């Protein structure tokens, strides 16, 4: 999973772990509160992924 692929893309394990934990926590809270709908959750997950992966660029 963390090897360089054919496109020269290599995932950072620390970032990946932070992403999973942040996304899980957000989903965990939302499963209790129902505060965000699916579309809002999708946007928030994308925000987390982009924030964590951001330093690649």
């Amino acid at each position, binding site marked *: 999973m963390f090897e360089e692929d054919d496109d020269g893309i290599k995932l950072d394990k620390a970032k990946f772990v932070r992403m999973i934990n942040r996304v899980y926590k957000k*989903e965990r809270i939302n499963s209790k509160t129902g*505060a965000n709908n699916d579309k809002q959750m999708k946007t928030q997950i994308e925000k987390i992924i982009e924030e964590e992966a951001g330093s690649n660029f």
Partner: protein
Amino acid sequence: MLLKSIKYHNFRPFIGDQKIILSSPNDDLDKNVTIILGDNTFGKSTFVLSFIWCLYGESRFTKANDILNKKIEKELPPDPSIKEKAIVEIEFEDENIEYTMRREQSFYRNENGQIKSDGSKPRLTYIDPEKHEAKSGGLTVSEINMNIKQILPKDLSTFFFFEGEKNNEIKRKDLGQAVRTLLGLEAFNKMMEHLHGSSSDKEPTATSVMGDYLKKQDDGSNKKAKEEFERKERAENDLNSIKEKIQEKDNEIQNYEELIDKVNERLREAEPSKEMQKRRDLIAKDLKDAEDSLERKYNQYFRAFSSNSFSLFVYPLLESASNKLEKMQVNDKGIKGIEASAINELLKRGVCLCGCDLKEGTAPYKNVAKYIDYVPPRSIGTLVLDMDEMLVEEEDKAKNFADSYEEQYKEIVKLREKINNLEKEDEAILQNLKEIGVIDTEGDESDLSKYKMKLQELRAEKDHLNSKRGSFESEIQNATKNYNALIGKSESARKYKVYYKYAEAIYNWVSKNYSNKEDELRDRLANNISELFNNMYSGHREISIDKLYNMKMTFQGDIVDDTGGLRVIEYFAYVGGLVKLAHEVKVEREKEDDDTASEALGEEYPLVLDAAFSHADQTHTKNIARELSKCANQLIFAMMKKDWTFAKEGLEGKVGRMYELEKIDETEVHIKEVQ
């Protein structure tokens, strides 16, 4: 979530200020049980329901507005300005953060003697774990409700605050989502759904995170860049093939030149043709030089066309665009390279770059300030200036190219004429040699003629190949330029590719680790419940859990009716099995070495039970008390004294605090701690 204490102020029968400190495994791991003793109508149900009222603002009392202590209420005069409050305050801990939830409701008596209320008001505070200071858990009611929901949602609370037989939640139709939420599985299900869409679809759905990133990657530039790259590769292959053919032609040309040299050598040897042969040698040398020069000129000529012809062809279009802009009278007073922000900065500093003072209102100030209208972002004048400059540049390039191209062509024509003349002269000398009959040149002459013809053919072929070579070089140059431009664009596509890879990796990880986890946890829940049930129940029943988490009880294969006492045991076995499993998975997760998903799956919950033993006999009372104290993290029993006699056998060594409700009259109950 673990409860630490509950405080009352004039709340129903709990007159004045009263407090119950609850046993918590955080204080003493073995003593996780609190006992509240009281007979019927002593306030046991009020105790359990006060948690619901305080946390969620919901009154489940027979009369919803019976909140204020009746004695206090009775003493209220008919004056709306005089108010009395009923308050419940709960201290609890969740994920190592200490919270205080307080709810109060003010009451007054109006002029007609009726009791009125302002509605309840919640207040949530918590101790910041880093700064160790109290902070607000929400300024508005909805913020507070949202925060409480994150800790223990109301619809799940009915599992943990048991009001006797009134709310047997395990009889709900679909417990799946509630149980999955309590075990932390719902979050993983939703995570997979949001990342990928339906798990039955192989490809991510368009509305999912992965689907969105796929769409954003495909902005077309990738495909175009690939096409340009392939075009470049094809042209490079063609160029290599042409170069090989040119090399073959060069070899053949060299071969024929050598043959011609040999013939000439033989002719040179013949006397008295020496002088003529000398001249022929010079002609051959000049011919060779001229041919080489011609080849170099051709190469320059084709390369010049490939590199510089763009300006020549594009110039008329640029000129037409410039004419149109001129007709549109676009202002071009802008200053190239200067934007409005730079002018504003000068005005702010009050000094121009030339040193002139720019005092507001002065002529220099106005003079400089007016340029704001002509520079970006307000005006496109500077863009027009750029365009004009480009036009001048392209015009120069086009003219230079046309001149130099014409010059090169003239040189090529000259060289061709020179070659032609030298060949004619050589032929004339040969004719002379033949006519004077000094040598028998017939055979050599015939060969020489053939060789020269062949040489001409080869050189023509080589010229043709060279022109092709020029066009392939031009093709490579253009494709490379386009590819580089598109690659710049596709940086954005690459960014989304990276995001997609992360989203995919998360989805795969969750899918691998948790898609089968639910089946496993359902089996474990069934085992927990079955074990608890058979430890509590004096007889034997087989317990199973269906896909919706509903419990089914059978005996020797036949479904058994669950009335009365059996239903209470069924409930406690279910809830006990659930809190036990939630605690187990939390502990397991914390112990796992895997550094991913360090967030705990399950959570800890208290069990607050009223009238737990109303349908239970002595044995079952003891069994239920024992089993629940073993599986629940925190257990709070409100029970009658008669039940305590039997329950205490099952709770030996587990009770940390015990209270007794002392009823003074129908409106006053005192909470006394029993040592």
